[in-house]
């Protein structure tokens, strides 16, 4: 068990810089999810932590010790590879046993025939068999133990790879998209298993995933990576409700956050499609955009901020997502509504949308979050201000 501290890691492959200064502090026993679009360098970062790849610059500390010169086998980490990397000639049971045998038995004890007679072997062997059983039961691969990896489906292979990683008790677990090939039911189930295992072992987990639900439900913190940088690393709630960057806001959350351009007048007051939002931004920006999560929008009557027609409906049973085209806006807005509101959001219907401007997330032209926003709605609004907005 150990904390992990990554400082200013860069990695270049020839001319391309894949990691551009990644820093991340992972406390002992934390569950960190690395999320980000394909090709942003998640696997590369994981491989550098594991010691399978050397960083170009930067430092990695494991339990306070610099491990830059330490080879992967000596870092005592366990890893699930994106491509499974199972030994094709070994049965499932033997695959799972490899890390145990390699680390618990000496070369002599591993010999096929003679090893049996080395003193103290019986106990170690029994323990290994038990460990394999436990791991196999947990991941529901017990009936497959005698098979070769070639005779397994993708999802089964993935579970074997997971079992091989989880069977040990390392300083930290590095998992590279370990559930990507499982079916929905098994994925939920395994997700719970891993979360429980994390609680039980109290070990450090670094978990790469594309699946936001996984990231949101399992992790203590989520690190959102993009283009070789970590844009934000915070608790799931914070990443969702209080993103630092427009890219983070857009990446996290499904359906995607609604981004709307807003105007800013000379005094810094904001307006949307000619209507005042009663928000004041201190700094002067070239352009300001606001982000509205689908659940921030609500249906309203006549006096709405936005009016549009329902163009598409996605009914998920427990909730309903409506895509609404608003004249003057490039993209359709996505609205989350309760199934009870179905009658109001028929296809083609004209609906009014409202939201609380103070909840909206504001971003400047670079996509950085604007934090210094004043809510001016509570003090009486002067007519002049509204008129001014009408003109901009």
């Amino acid at each position, binding site marked *: 068990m150990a904390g992990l501290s990554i400082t200013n890691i860069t990695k270049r492959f020839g001319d391309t810089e894949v990691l551009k200064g990644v820093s991340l502090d992972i406390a002992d026993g934390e569950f960190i999810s690395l999320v980000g679009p394909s090709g942003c360098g998640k696997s590369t970062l994981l*491989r550098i932590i*594991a*010691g*399978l790849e050397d960083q170009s610059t930067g430092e990695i500390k494991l339990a306070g010790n610099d491990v830059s010169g330490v*080879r*992967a*086998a*000596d870092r005592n*980490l*366990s*890893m699930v*590879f994106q*491509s499974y*990397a*199972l*030994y*094709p*000639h*070994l049965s499932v049971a033997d695959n799972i046993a*490899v*890390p145990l045998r*390699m*680390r618990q038995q000496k*070369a002599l004890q591993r010999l096929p025939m003679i090893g049996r007679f080395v003193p103290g072997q019986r106990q170690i062997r029994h323990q290994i068999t038990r460990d394999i059983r436990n791991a196999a039961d947990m991941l529901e691969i017990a009936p497959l133990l005698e098979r*070769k*990896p*070639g005779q397994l489906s993708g999802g089964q292979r993935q579970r074997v790879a997971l079992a*091989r990683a989880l069977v040990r008790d390392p300083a930290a677990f590095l998992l590279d998209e370990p559930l990507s090939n499982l079916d929905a039911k098994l994925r939920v189930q395994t997700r719970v298993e891993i979360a429980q295992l994390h609680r039980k072992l109290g070990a450090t987990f670094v978990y790469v995933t594309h699946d936001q639900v996984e990231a949101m439900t399992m992790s203590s913190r989520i690190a959102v990576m993009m283009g070789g940088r970590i844009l934000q690393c915070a608790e799931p709630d914070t990443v969702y409700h209080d993103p630092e960057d427009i890219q983070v806001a857009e990446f996290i959350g499904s359906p995607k956050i609604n981004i709307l351009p807003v105007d800013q007048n000379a005094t810094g007051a904001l307006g949307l499609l000619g209507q005042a939002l009663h928000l004041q931004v201190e700094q002067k920006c070239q352009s300001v955009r606001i982000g509205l999560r689908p659940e921030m929008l609500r249906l309203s009557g006549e006096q709405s901020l936005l009016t549009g027609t329902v163009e598409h409906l996605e009914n998920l049973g427990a909730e309903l997502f409506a895509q609404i085209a608003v004249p003057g806006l490039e993209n359709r807005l996505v609205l989350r509504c309760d199934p009870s509101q179905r009658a109001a959001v028929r296809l083609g219907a004209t609906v009014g949308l409202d939201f609380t401007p103070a909840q909206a997330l504001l971003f400047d032209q670079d996509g950085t979050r604007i934090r210094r926003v004043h809510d001016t709605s509570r003090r009486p609004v002067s007519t002049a201000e509204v008129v001014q907005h009408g003109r901009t």
Partner: protein
Amino acid sequence: MGAPDITLQPLTKDTRPVPATVQERRAAWLLTAPALSLMVLILLLPVVVAAILSFTDYALGNDTFRWVGWKNYSHLFTRRTYEKMFLATFTYVVTVVPISVGLGLGAALLINSLGRFREIYKTIYFLPVMATLLAMSIAWEFMLHPSIGMINRTLELGCGTLFEAIPLIREGCADRFPVWLGDKRYAIWVISFIGIWQGFGFNMVLYLAGLTSVHRELYNAAEMDGAKSAWEQFRLVTWPALGPTTVFVVTISCIRAFQVFDTIEAFWPQGGGPNKSTYVMMFAIFEKGVQQNLIGIGSAITMLFLVFVMLLTIVQCWLVERKVHY
């Protein structure tokens, strides 16, 4: 059903339905017939003819022959000459196969670990394979010459130095250096050495091809699992992945070793080496069947040769099926 005769007539004229399977089967036989007959004619027929001839005393040019039953075969297992033949052949195979496979694997692993110069090394090691053994034999004959040959000249340099501790050099300095090709103690080993020298480059190339199929991430997995030494990684990843290649390489090496002929024919055109110590099967077939025109006994050796090769192939198939296919 009268289906068979009508298949070639236009279907519209005949309303009786022709079962598709029968039609398909006939077409299939028709289409494979040329290949089948060629196969029988040029691959199987010679073997059958050789098998028949091995029971006769036929000689080329004779009008008639007599059936001699198993006499040719019983000669093979009773006469002293053939005992020497088996001894020479098996010594050669048992020496050349493991060493040339081992060296081929070693060279392939070394070359595979190189970044640069890979192609150069590959070419150098492959040179002996490309050169014809017959031409190379002449070069070797020069080198092995007892008095002016490079090898004995080099050994002479060791006289009077520490190298005299080696028995071969000590005896050589005291008396004279070996007559490599004329001494029955050395001849078969010299032939084996040349066989290895010539053959391992071929195995190396096969192994290099096999190595490209090893999944690179497996080495990473092995490293994470705690396989630290190169040997452990080799055992866990490389060697199992090379299983199918190894079976193939060993079989090919065995067959090639059984077929050794050129060097022996070049060094000792008459007789198969000093005291018949290098009288291998191929040479025996050549001597009996071609030089002495004893087709019957030549065919018998040929059949025996085929049996060996066939056994090897069966073992290979069995291994591939059972052990090395994942």
